[in-house]
């Protein structure tokens, strides 16, 4: 074999080289690029084309905290079976960024494929002999075809999509259709891109045979939609009747506010151009939550969206919302913490802070969506809950849900559904002299009535404060008044447990005393892992928790099982802590399965971690990708 590899070389079989991977509609492709190089749209085209062929895809963009010049990756998980979590491992690598070549090549599964730009030959040492290498002189091809450097750069991206389309069998017509849709506004670009696509495809057709990873048209996608969680949550806020949005830019939440803005321009603007909403980009997060609390106090549905650092800054106002009982909604799109941490990585590590945010004794409601579909429904529901409970409600997304496009069932809305504004005294009720005591528990559910400012000339006015007061909202420093109020707030929190969405049970094929609890973006990888584990003979009942406080079903589930794995994407087992604190659960029965390196959890990690745990039912407290001595 030559000491460098070049154009179209197919590495011949060798003792050590495993047979090429063979799979139909079930493999992982990973692109490595440089951010700001325009590869994003080409990679998106690649993923979208597969979906249009009816084959389910989970695509994940791994990008740096930087605008131009640093590494980015795009991982496309193709799964005819419909597994939308990360699987783990790479079957076909497309490393187009020299900075990360070594790591990218290392990741390829034995027998997997390496697709690269072979314009200038690379030393053999740069390759592995247990994988199959496909070289395509992308740069050479494009330099020959194009003059302008910008063109050469841009079309090179479409060009490799073309080559790949031949290798794994993407329908050219689908590509053509997608290009027509994408460039509907600038039709001139359609033929140009198509040409670049064919440039790559034709070269490959001439020089190479298709590889073992093949696509086959299918109907497994159905009428599902492909959408980001942030956009879905923004749309949920529109349908939930949010009118005031105050925010401050921060990755990965920015696109939620931007999505709300464009949906409102489209759906909430009158013919005369007047806006049925108000969006303010504030000077910071403290001002943002302040605006939300002010608007909520005055009867508008208001929200802010942020990430960890913003939650930290909002702590004081969160306590005010809890104690003065003012509706407010916060979308926390979680990223890698602590501190500035990893702004462009995903994690579920704000749970504990959000649950008990602010000084003094506080407890807050959290909704835990698992995909963009739930971002929409919970994004709307959060406002009903917040008005009903007169307190802050967190919707806990993470970067993986918020900024990645997911294949989910179409959004649904029942036009018959009414908005629940909660307990608000009307002018009529006040007029007829109905009793009003702002902090009086009239219904024995811990939830008092409130009034909107301006409701009645002489009745219903009260003074709102963060200091202790009596049931009639009068200032009081009496211990009994304070304690009476704090106990009511606790009662209200118990009421909340009956109103929030319940958990979703996924029963094992056989009766079992083994259970697993998980939530949020872990869901798809978890489902895939459970299938495999079941096949391996591990029967596990799995409960997906959807809200805090936990409702009774969660505790019943725990009681019904002896050994429970709690799966989380954080270091400190935060959900487990909440279960112990609120449910008085014996920690010995809760085993933590933790993944927190900032990359989305994978099915393979879960199969190992849970499998090992069950195989050797030792009472180790925690299992993580690397041993963790907590």
């Amino acid at each position: 074999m030559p000491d460098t590899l070049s154009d179209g070389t197919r590495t011949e079989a060798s003792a050590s080289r495993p047979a090429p991977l063979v799979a139909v509609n079930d493999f992982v492709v990973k692109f490595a690029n440089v951010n700001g190089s325009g590869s994003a749209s080409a990679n998106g085209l690649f993923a979208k084309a597969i979906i249009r062929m009816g084959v389910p895809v989970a695509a994940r963009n791994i990008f740096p905290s930087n605008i131009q010049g640093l590494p980015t990756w795009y991982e496309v998980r193709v799964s005819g079976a419909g597994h939308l979590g990360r699987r783990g491992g790479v079957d076909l690598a497309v490393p187009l960024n020299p900075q990360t070549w070594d790591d990218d090549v290392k990741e390829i599964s034995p027998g997997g494929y390496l697709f690269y730009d072979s314009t200038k030959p690379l030393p053999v040492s740069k390759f592995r002999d247990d994988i199959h290498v496909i070289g395509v002189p992308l740069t050479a091809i494009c330099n020959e075809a194009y003059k302008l450097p910008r063109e050469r750069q841009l079309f090179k991206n479409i060009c490799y999509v073309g080559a790949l389309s031949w290798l794994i069998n993407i329908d050219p017509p689908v590509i053509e259709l997608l290009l027509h849709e994408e460039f509907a506004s600038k039709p001139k670009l359609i033929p140009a891109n198509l040409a670049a696509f064919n440039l790559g495809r034709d070269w490959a057709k001439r020089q190479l045979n298709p590889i073992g990873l093949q696509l086959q048209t299918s109907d497994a996608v159905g009428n599902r939609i492909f959408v980001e969680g942030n956009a879905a949550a923004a749309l949920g806020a529109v349908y939930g009747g949010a009118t005031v949005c105050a925010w401050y830019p921060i990755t990965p939440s920015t696109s939620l506010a931007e999505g709300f803005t464009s949906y409102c321009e489209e759906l909430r603007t009158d013919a005369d151009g007047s806006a049925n909403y108000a969006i303010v980009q504030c000077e910071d997060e403290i001002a943002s939550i302040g605006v939300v609390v002010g608007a909520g106090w005055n009867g508008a549905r208001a929200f802010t969206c942020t990430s960890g650092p913003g939650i930290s800054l909002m702590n004081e106002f969160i306590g005010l919302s809890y104690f003065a009982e003012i509706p407010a909604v916060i979308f926390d799109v979680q990223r890698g913490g602590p501190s500035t941490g990893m702004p462009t990585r995903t994690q579920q590590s704000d749970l504990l802070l959000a649950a008990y945010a602010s000084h003094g004794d506080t407890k807050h409601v959290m909704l835990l969506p698992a995909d963009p579909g739930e971002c929409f429904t919970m994004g709307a529901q959060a406002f009903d809950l917040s008005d009903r409970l007169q307190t802050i409600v967190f919707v806990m997304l993470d970067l993986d849900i918020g900024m990645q496009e997911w294949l989910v069932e179409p959004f649904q809305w029942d036009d018959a559904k009414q908005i629940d504004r909660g307990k608000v005294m009307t002018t009529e009720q006040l007029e007829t002299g109905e009793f009003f005591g702002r902090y009086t528990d009239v219904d024995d559910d811990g939830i008092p009535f409130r009034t909107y400012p301006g409701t009645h000339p002489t009745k219903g006015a009260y003074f709102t404060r963060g200091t202790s007061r009596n049931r009639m909202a009068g200032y009081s420093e009496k211990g009994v008044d304070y304690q009476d109020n704090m106990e009511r707030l606790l009662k209200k929190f118990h009421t909340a447990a009956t109103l929030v969405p319940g958990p979703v049970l996924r029963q094992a094929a056989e009766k079992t005393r083994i259970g697993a609890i998980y939530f949020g973006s872990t869901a798809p990888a978890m489902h895939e892992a459970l299938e495999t584990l079941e096949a391996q003979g591990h029967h596990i009942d799995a409960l997906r928790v959807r809200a805090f406080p936990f409702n009774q079903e969660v505790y019943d589930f725990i009681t019904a099982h002896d050994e429970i794995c709690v799966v989380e994407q954080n270091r400190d087992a935060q959900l487990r802590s909440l279960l112990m604190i609120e449910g008085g659960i014996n920690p010995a029965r809760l085993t933590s399965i933790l993944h927190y390196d900032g990359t989305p959890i994978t099915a393979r990690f879960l199969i190992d971690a849970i499998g090992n745990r069950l195989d050797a039912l030792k009472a180790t407290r925690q299992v993580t990708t690397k041993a963790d001595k907590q």
Partner: protein
Amino acid sequence: MTYIVKPKLHHPSLPKNELGLTRRDYEGRVSTLCAGCGHDSISAAIIQSAWELGIEPHRLAKMSGIGCSSKTPDYFLGQSHGFNSVHGRMPSVLTGANLANRDLIYLGVSGDGDSASIGLGQFAHSIRRGVNMAYIVENNGVYGLTKGQFSATSDKGSKSKKGLENTENGIDLVALALQLGATYVGRSFSGDKEQLVPLIKGAMSHHGPAFIDVISPCVAFNNHAGSTKSFDYVREHNEAVNRLDVILGRTPITTSYAPGEVREVTQHDGSTLRLRKLHDDYDPTNKISAANYLQERHAQGEIVTGLLYVDPEATDLHDRLETTAKPLNRLSAAELTPGAAALAKINASLR
């Protein structure tokens, strides 16, 4: 200092306003502030102003932060909703309230610690954002409620009760408000009700960010010799540039003045600000010259008071956001929720 002749409107022989309400109807709970606190005089001026303007108490919202000054909304306009929020954050809370219902009048009451120390950022941004509000800082140069530490408006060289000298530059909120785009800016003194009441009335009827810096001595911690915020010091250094009458659109203009002596500014809502000049060279509609004048006099150690700047063409945040006329908190589900059909279209666009 130059005292102002009591304007007619103030005459106590008018027990009821056009709504048939007496001053009592505009009062609140009994104040728990120290006897003689300047803040109580400001509360009285607010009561007087709202009564004279004939504001329906429940159509006004009282917002504040934390401090003795921020406690005062409990002591006036008992029929108005009030919100004593958190320290230094009244401006954002008021902004949110204003966005939720553009039809109410928003009165923000704060202290110098609340607005110039912890709250400086929110003070600045709420003004540059153009929130329609009457923002009053009850400025005593100290943190009253925490017992008399210097605040950020305390002048360099001013002495604390314990004799300590302040070494940091004092912040002039009026200069900042001008700089940041407030469209109505005044300064006054809690001890000068005749000047203060019309200024507050003008601010309440102004459409845009209106700011008034009211020097309000703290009798418990900052009313001693050596303080530049004591009653005596302010009386000695007070320099009024004009005197203001607020004439509601309806009221006909009767009295006549020598030409040049009076300047009239008509605001959006039809109210007229009638200014009697006390300084020929002072033009309250020219921001740059006004700012320059203030700096020069400030350098002389004078405390310039009066209506210092007004822009009759002022716009507010809602104008900029083109918000619908109907208060957002009154929009119906139908107006808010696009419905299933619209959603189907969106779904289609996402395949």
